[in-house]
């Protein structure tokens, strides 16, 4: 497939709010099950090891008319839970046999309870990942939580999930993380060749496709993208931050690039980039997953940072590693993690002399011109400073 065809396929998946690909996957063999999960992180390896399809649920975007969902939420609560409820009560998520709600924030946490009240026949799990990063304390707690999830999935699957099943899944997800790392490295090196809206669509495809298929798709894209000569623009290089849960409209990402910014790193769909190194495929697989979480997982606003001096370090390192010239904070309205974290991250950037700008959005934001103007002004100012 050529680049355009790959992107077109990803766009079709992105726009399909009836989750036809998931339905088709289930129909292709008897007794197949699909488990939804919300951002930011769940161990998809366990779902896969149970023979089930992990399905990332990221709200309804700007294509969904939210009619019922608004009746469940006050105006001051972010958009993603109301469009997710809309998807559910309109039957679009009936292809899912269960849902996992990670400990992202109070809204996602309470959404797990709403699911318990609304859909009592489904498997519903709140996944409390540790905020304690001591292997003997937080690590032990998390291993037991993983074991509990394993047992719940096994019960649903009607079979045991063996250690070897999990190891095989870990191996596939290691390969997927490797492919994504290659994609991100390619974009960072030659951002004009890898537009961020395309990266975004590729990452979204990974929320729906079986993992091996997604890995192959990424490599196909890289191969094909290298064959195409795209014009190099005089854009500035930026990292965008704050998009880890509620998703930006695709137009917002296009606007940022059109305004003169090459995005060289982001925090989209962190579930796929959460673990920063390969998870070992020998030994106790749950222990390996837990230790990977504790020892080498990404930093985001949903995680506690133990030391004051480490706050924002991950973002600063990303700026340096990707030779970015500035940071754009794009935070969803009413997003507690992103908005509470932002001043501390801004302080960390200021201490390093890294410029930043900030705005808010909602998944259905329609007025993108102000964002384009702000990003454009930011890009211009960076260029001016660079010239000076």
């Amino acid at each position, binding site marked *: 497939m050529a680049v355009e065809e790959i992107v077109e396929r990803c766009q079709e998946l992105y726009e399909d709010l009836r989750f036809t690909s998931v339905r088709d996957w289930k129909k292709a063999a008897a007794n197949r099950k699909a488990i939804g999960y919300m951002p930011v992180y769940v161990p998809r390896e366990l779902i896969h090891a149970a023979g089930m399809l992990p399905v990332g649920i990221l709200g309804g975007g700007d294509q969904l008319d939210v009619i019922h969902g608004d*009746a*469940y*939420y*006050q105006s*001051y*609560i972010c958009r993603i*839970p109301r469009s997710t409820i809309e998807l559910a009560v309109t039957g679009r998520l009936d292809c899912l046999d269960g849902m996992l709600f990670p*400990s992202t*924030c*109070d*809204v996602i*946490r*309470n*959404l*797990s*309870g*709403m699911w*318990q*009240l*609304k859909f009592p026949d489904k498997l519903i*799990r*709140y996944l*409390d990942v*540790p*905020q*304690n990063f*001591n292997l*003997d*304390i*937080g690590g*032990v*707690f998390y291993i*037991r*939580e993983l074991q*509990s999830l394993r047992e719940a999935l096994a019960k649903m699957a009607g079979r045991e999930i063996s250690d070897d099943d999990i190891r095989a899944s870990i191996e596939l997800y290691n390969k997927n993380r490797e492919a994504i790392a290659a994609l991100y490295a390619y974009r960072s090196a030659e951002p004009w060749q890898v537009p961020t809206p395309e990266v975004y669509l590729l990452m979204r495809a990974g929320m729906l496709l079986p993992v091996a298929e997604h890995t192959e798709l990424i490599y196909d894209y890289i191969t094909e993208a290298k064959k195409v000569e795209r014009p190099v623009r005089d854009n500035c290089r930026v990292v965008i931050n704050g998009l880890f849960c509620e998703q930006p409209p695709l137009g917002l990402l296009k606007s940022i690039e059109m305004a003169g910014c090459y995005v060289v790193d982001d925090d989209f769909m962190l579930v796929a980039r959460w673990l920063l190194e390969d998870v070992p495929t020998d030994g106790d697989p749950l222990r390996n997953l837990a230790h990977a979480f504790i020892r080498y997982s990404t930093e985001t*606003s949903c995680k*506690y*940072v*133990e030391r*004051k001096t480490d*706050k924002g370090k991950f973002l600063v390192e990303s700026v340096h590693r990707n030779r970015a010239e500035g940071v754009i904070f794009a*935070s969803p*309205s*009413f*997003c*507690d*993690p992103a*908005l*509470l*974290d*932002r*001043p*501390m991250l*801004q*302080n960390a950037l200021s201490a390093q002399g890294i410029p930043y700008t900030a705005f*808010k959005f909602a998944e259905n934001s329609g007025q993108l011109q102000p964002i384009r103007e702000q990003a454009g002004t930011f890009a211009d100012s960076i260029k001016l400073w660079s010239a000076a």
Partner: protein
Amino acid sequence: MNTAANVQTEVQKEESMLLQKAMISANFDALATAHEDGKKISSTFVPGNLNELLMCFDLVRNLPEINALQSAMRKQTAGYIMEAERSGHSEDVCSYVKSDLGMMAKGQIGPTGKPLPTPDVLLLSYTGCFTFMKWFELVRDQYDCETAMLHVPYQADGEITDNMRDFVVMQLKEQIIPTLERVTGVKFDIDRLRENLKESAKAEEDLVWVLQAAKNRPSPIDAYFGGIYYCGPIFSAFRGSKEATAYYAALRREVAERIDQGLGPITPEGVLDEERIRLVVEGPPNWTHFRDFWKMFYDEGAVVVASSYTKVGGVYDYGFRHDPDHPIETLADYCLGCYTNRSLPARVDMLCDYMDEYSADGFLVNSIKSCNSFSAGQLLMLREIEERTGKPAGFIETDLVDPRYFSPANVKNRLESYFQMIEQKKAHGERTAA
């Protein structure tokens, strides 16, 4: 309409209210001079507050939510919040946090006008509220003090599992207690903790008795507006102290006398002489207009007979008491059991029980903009409770300490309509029964 018997210009307070006011004021005094007195200061949150443990290290206890609400009642928070927003904090986030940060930026003067010195340790008991974690990261960013983080898992399936309890116990033993020892230089004495826990259990017994006194008709207390005063000592720097035990014993005697005399609750304008509507209320109160807000209820003869907010610092009415025989485990169970650490279905069950046990006529949600922990899901809870109990439910929106989000005319209008609906429904029920 005003149903308070004697409308007086001077605000009426129960003896216990005056006593708790004096206790809280004394704590602010102790905080102001703590460092001069050679004492160390801890800062921690109300839910999951480990006061008995902190007392073992001779720490003077600061609670930032209490500072914020006390400041709000004194009309100080608008300036603090604007100060925080000027320095880059979003208008969308928790006003407790912004009030605290604004207060710090404006010179760390507490609500009573006395200095609030920099704490020596932040005990980040991450219980039932994600914002707590960010709040203390922000505070730590300002102060160069140690932070002890206690992750309390969420009771998503309505029960405390062994894994949850073991996790909290391990953190307490291996991390929290050693950190407190290091910061204070005081060696941990488990027998001292046991003694404190004994005091807690006595106070908890009396508090439950007082709150359950609202099952009487008329209710001798208002379990929301008055309940907040009653919970003050046990939710803050006093649980586990002999002072708190004495306070709750006195409060119990006071309420018992009111029951004997057939009296209703004391409002700021005197004893409420006609209880027309009995309510269960979900959600925290508004603090910036606390008295105006309360007046909207007692003017209509509406009495809150049970509330979820009075369980935010600990749920005791299902039998939990701090257990001195299992001192560390009981601290874990306490944290795990706080109201906002419970699942939505568990909260719905609890509120339905209240509707039944306290013979309530209606269920009201005061939805707080600042507090997603409480607020996210409340509209579904409201529908569930209305459906299960058959009683009318009402919904209003305010905020904790941001006065911009308290719209008196809107709230009053909504409440009056809601009370009329309840009375019509009651009248219809009485006619049908006749």
